[in-house]
């Protein structure tokens, strides 16, 4: 069988509980720890600087097993966010999960706390299809297993800057993509 994939957010306390499949819905980055597609807890347009969302932790779940294996798991964005919207991504260390929390709005240590971490290291503009974020370079999952295998979390965080001109409401969607090799 082909490996069927679902993408899930993790919310709640460590190790977190998985949301239902979020593949194919527009994801809402907000100042709350939930995976609900709604307009609550929005990011306010700042007067100076940027307003951060709380982080989101994501994994891809293989609900059917691959013929042989899943390997070389990557993550990238296929288009950039609208102007004035900043979007950051990194992979967490193996075995680490951090619950989204109110301190995330100050910038996450080692992730979005400095200009260097934001722009040089973790801005998604660094991760187009040709230079994706490597989630797991080796084998993630082998037949006959299902689930998430050995993958680590992809952490993402969004912010809105003073130059965003889109007005209130949801922003123009842009695509996050998981890519993997399947044999």
């Amino acid at each position: 069988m082909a490996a069927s994939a679902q993408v899930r957010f993790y919310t709640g306390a460590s190790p977190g509980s998985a949301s239902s499949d979020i593949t194919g819905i527009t994801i809402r980055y907000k100042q709350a720890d939930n995976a609900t597609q709604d307009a609550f807890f929005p990011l306010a347009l700042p007067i100076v600087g940027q307003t951060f969302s709380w982080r989101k932790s994501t994994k891809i779940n293989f609900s059917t097993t691959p013929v042989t294996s899943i390997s070389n798991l990557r993550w990238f964005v296929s288009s950039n966010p609208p102007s004035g919207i900043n979007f950051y991504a990194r992979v967490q260390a193996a075995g680490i999960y951090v619950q989204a929390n109110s301190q995330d709005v100050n910038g996450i240590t080692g992730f979005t706390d400095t200009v260097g971490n934001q722009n040089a290291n973790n801005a998604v503009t660094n991760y187009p299809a040709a230079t994706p974020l490597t989630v797991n370079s080796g084998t993630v999952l082998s037949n006959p297993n299902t689930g998430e295998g050995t993958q680590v979390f992809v952490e993402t965080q969004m912010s809105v800057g003073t130059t965003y001109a889109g007005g209130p409401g949801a922003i123009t969607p842009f695509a996050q993509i998981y890519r993997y090799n399947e044999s």
Partner: protein
Amino acid sequence: MPTAEELVAQAELHRKQETEHWYIDDGDKVMNDTDGGRMLYAWKAIYEDGTCARQYDEITFMRALNDALYVPPIDRIISISTVDQDRVRELILYPIAYALRHCPRASTVRVVVNPKKGEKLLVYWCTDVNVTTGHTIRRQVVGIERDGQKLLFVLSPSGTMTLATNDDVSFDGE
């Protein structure tokens, strides 16, 4: 008389229209019928002694190559991992008859392998799961690896073939 630039622009426009036509008219149906493009090709591996191995049993394989209304069931796939890597000298990827009907640019690909020179055959699917749209697209990848270097042919469901040295390529909707 059109200029060279105008001819190039015209060719690019035709290419774009052809791609858009494919997506609008047939794309969704093809992707649904073939598990995101996974079933569009069928492989045959030829060994040094002339014997061969195939992706499906003989009846399923021949029907796939001749019946334009037929897409083989997924559970009939024989894993490529069953191919004896030390003896294979050629791998052929055939577009199934269904693919030739719906994807006019699909074509046969032959990869010649020389295990005695340290070449290793690579065959797998490169799968993209678009979190935002929910679409899954599977591209057939075939190529060789030698001394840590890869040469890959990536076949998109639209029939476009991309030559690459790694999987991290932007296909721009192909």
